[in-house]
């Protein structure tokens, strides 16, 4: 249904096929958070890898910083309609975390947990194989507090609420357990190319 008088502003043709349906390109970096930015310092930061309730390994900041680093350049897509192209991140691939812990994924599902109480579920298949990392740097700099410092999950091929800010750990779960937004009407998987914004999409 055409909207009377609306012409709109299309993305440049050379990037149009990188913009999923319903999304618009932003040059900024909007912030969406359910609550205040938590105050996480490097002194008290740690990252826990759990299989169900069992702690497999915990890294403090110094230990985390000696893990292999990987840089990636990816387009990111937020369910609030913005997409940002060519974002550059540095961090530790989930593959490298698992290798350091000597753990093969024990279940097909995982929950990322954050310092502010946030959580989000991601299938393990979307975390391994170089698809996801725990990112500590964006565009060559440490993360800004409002963007998840000191570390956030980066799962760039899913809507960005899956890329949990202020991440405190990753937990393998027997079932696909809904996280914060997934419990509040958002899609359990969140593929931007299939426009899986909401539960039932």
């Amino acid at each position: 249904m055409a909207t009377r008088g609306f012409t709109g502003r299309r993305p440049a043709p050379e990037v149009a096929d990188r913009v999923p349906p319903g999304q618009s390109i932003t040059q900024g970096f909007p912030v969406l958070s359910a609550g205040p930015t938590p105050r996480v310092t490097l002194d008290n930061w740690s990252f826990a890898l759990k299989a169900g309730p069992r702690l497999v390994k915990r890294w403090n900041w110094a230990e985390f910083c000696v893990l292999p680093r990987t840089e990636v350049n990816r387009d990111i897509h937020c369910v609030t309609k913005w997409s940002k192209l060519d974002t550059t991140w540095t961090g530790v691939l989930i593959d490298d975390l698992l290798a350091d812990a000597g753990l093969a994924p024990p279940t097909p599902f995982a929950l990322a947990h954050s310092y502010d109480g946030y959580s989000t579920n991601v299938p393990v298949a979307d975390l391994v194989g170089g698809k996801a990392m725990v990112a500590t740097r964006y565009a060559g700099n440490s993360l800004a507090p409002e963007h998840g410092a000191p570390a956030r999950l980066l799962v760039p091929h899913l809507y960005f609420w899956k890329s949990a800010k202020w991440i405190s750990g990753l937990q393998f779960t027997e079932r696909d357990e809904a996280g914060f937004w997934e419990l509040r009407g958002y899609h359990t998987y969140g593929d931007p190319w299939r426009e899986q914004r909401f539960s039932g999409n």
Partner: protein
Amino acid sequence: MTVTDADTQADHLLWQAAVIERIETQTAKVKSFYLRPQKWRFFRAGQHLDVRLTAPDGYEVQRSYSVASEPGLAGLYELVVERLKDGEISPFLHDVAAVGDVLEVRGPFGGHFVWNAADGGPLLLIAGGSGIAPLMSIVRHSTAVGGDVAVVLLQAARTWNDVIYREELHALDAAGAGFALMLSLSRDAARRPQDAGRRIDAPLLEAALARLGVAPRLTFVCGSNPFVEAVTGHLLDLGFDPQTVRTERFGW
């Protein structure tokens, strides 16, 4: 009967036509659009709608807008739109869209930045600019149904003339039914003793707390990201439990 994807989707996920029934100028940069959808769905105060515009060649663009009207205003959704100079949608809505035009909407959506009477109070609401929209729905809903819920709204704007819903909020404040308004004007002088001619800072938040009398059960903060970051930083400094503070941020 053929079962389509649409038949199996939840109602609120389906795009539907909504007629612009009324447009109200709120301030120099802000207008309210009252939309009457084909099928109005109940919403919770604080929720938002998705709006979709389509060009003649099929190009589509979507945005989310908080509903400012009260859930009790059945049949209509009021959306608050600030005209952004470089925006794709807001200049169209301000300059081109007219009463009788049809937009597409779906929703309501959002399950966190919401309030209903069962959530109780007291409530501290903090709005920056057009961030008043979802908070206005909460104010209207709490005064309509939540009779004994104490609510303080701390509303930030550049000047007195940029205060969205100024007359309605002052009338509610004067009615004295548990609702109090405090203004923070960054580029204007305070006109009442409870208002401040400066940005929101810790002393102003302490004054809002004093006006509430007891610690708020929930605090809702909505505005631009820098606004929300600054305000919530002060709230954490003041010892607020972050689990009681809900935020919504906008800006591209």
